[in-house]
């Protein structure tokens, strides 16, 4: 589906969600609690079949976090971006491991570097850093006087 058609179909199906065309693909701003129901539809509905999660990451906006999911369909070859706003003090969101197996490692990485807690993740451990690392390096307020480069 082309971006415009995709946007239309998304808008009609999810009237509550804020849909817009981003720089490349349609973007949907969602509430963290709606994630699973939305993904359920996007993943298994025949008209979308977003079966391929090609990027899952998080952006620290200082006041809040935004989880960004890039979904694509290997069947229809269209893509969509989901954005979920998270609370800065206690960032929590449902895990997507049940839908995409790649989410396992991607979420562990986000947990490791951003400190987002993924609910119902089967194996939420530090991935890149050691278990006893203090802090989450990709957060904007993270300071490491030894290792950090400042320009």
């Amino acid at each position, binding site marked *: 589906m082309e971006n415009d058609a995709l946007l239309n179909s998304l808008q009609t199906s999810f009237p509550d969600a804020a849909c817009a065309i981003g720089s490349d693909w349609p973007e949907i701003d969602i509430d963290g609690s709606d994630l699973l129901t939305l993904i359920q539809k996007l993943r298994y509905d025949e008209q979308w079949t977003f079966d391929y999660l*090609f*990027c899952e990451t998080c*952006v620290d906006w200082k006041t809040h976090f935004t989880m960004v999911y890039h979904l694509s369909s290997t069947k229809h070859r269209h893509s969509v971006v989901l954005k979920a706003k998270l609370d800065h003090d206690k960032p929590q969101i449902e895990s997507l491991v049940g839908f995409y*197996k790649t989410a396992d490692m991607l979420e562990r990485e986000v947990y490791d570097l951003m400190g987002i807690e993924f609910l119902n993740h089967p194996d939420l451990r530090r991935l890149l850093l050691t278990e006893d690392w203090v802090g989450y390096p*990709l957060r904007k307020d993270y300071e490491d006087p030894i290792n950090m*480069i400042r320009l």
Partner: protein
Amino acid sequence: MHQEIKTTPSGDMVINVGPQHPSTHGVLHLLITLNGETIVNLDPNIGYIHRSIEKMCESLSYRQFIYTTSRMDYLSSHMNNHACALTVEKGLQIEVPERAEVIRVIISELTRLASHQLWWGSMAMDLGALSPFFYAFREREMITDIMEETCGARLTMNYVVPGGVMMDLHPDFQKKVKAFIVQFKSKIGEYHDLVTGNIIFQNRTKGIGMLSKEDAISYGVTGPAARGSGLSCDIRKLYPYATYQKLQFNEILETAGDSFARYMVRMREMEESVSIIEQLIDNIPEGEFQAKTKAVLKLPKGEFYTRIETARGELGVYLVSEGGTTPYRIKFRSPGFSNLSALNHMIKGHKMGDLVAVMGTLDLVIPDIDR
């Protein structure tokens, strides 16, 4: 004095493969649970070469951050740079001159060839055939020589700048690339004779590390590893960038989904890359090799995503800009990271010796996984 060998409650032996191990080709650490010789579970423990490139990029300018990515997947360093440059160009809406685009594509394909040749040699070496490595390096050396002459570096090229390439091609470039193509075409048959047709090699790789198409999608496996499972995922074909839409080439697909299929995909991809270079090498357009850009680049506020096909699969660059001179947040979706996540699924139930046959065909580059 005599220490107990550690086992799991069910009596399986837990063995550390890596961080220093000859077949992980880098500092990958795999915690393997073994029942006799059979692998019960595999837990990748990564991060030994994590340099937090994403965090580093947040304090580097749009011109500088491109070059840190050479150190991610060092075997396709040019393609990493290319992806970053494309992202910056997308943000600034720079028109890249035709000549620069063609040069970028030729260098990309040469890099892919060099990467696949190294993979071929090291995979054969992992499986115990030590000689193919030297045959692969004979041809790879010609490519690195071309690279050296073009931009001064042999591996981490740093040849791309936003808006084009750093300097024009060397006058000998076309001649040398053609000489390489002649040499490569005369030797590819030798590669197949030596390894592909070998009965031991085929027995070691056929039916090993099965990955179905559905699993490949679910695990986000891309590149030759996924194309061996019949998943069409070549970004050059699906979402063409640079001049790829004007070129004639095939996306190599194998349907078996085993190690041998992944091996064949890469072998045939080399021939496709040569054909791409052949199409371009005589048709490098004249003109500028670099677009005029401002000294200090400032991307507009927004988010930009670029997908590119490296030698290992799909590299995604997700760049968030706040309108300043440095990226606000960068995320590299590295192909190796997702490919590694499928390793446990692929290796379960196989023998210890199959680990190298499966890992070899995933073509993991550890700095690419750790970033």
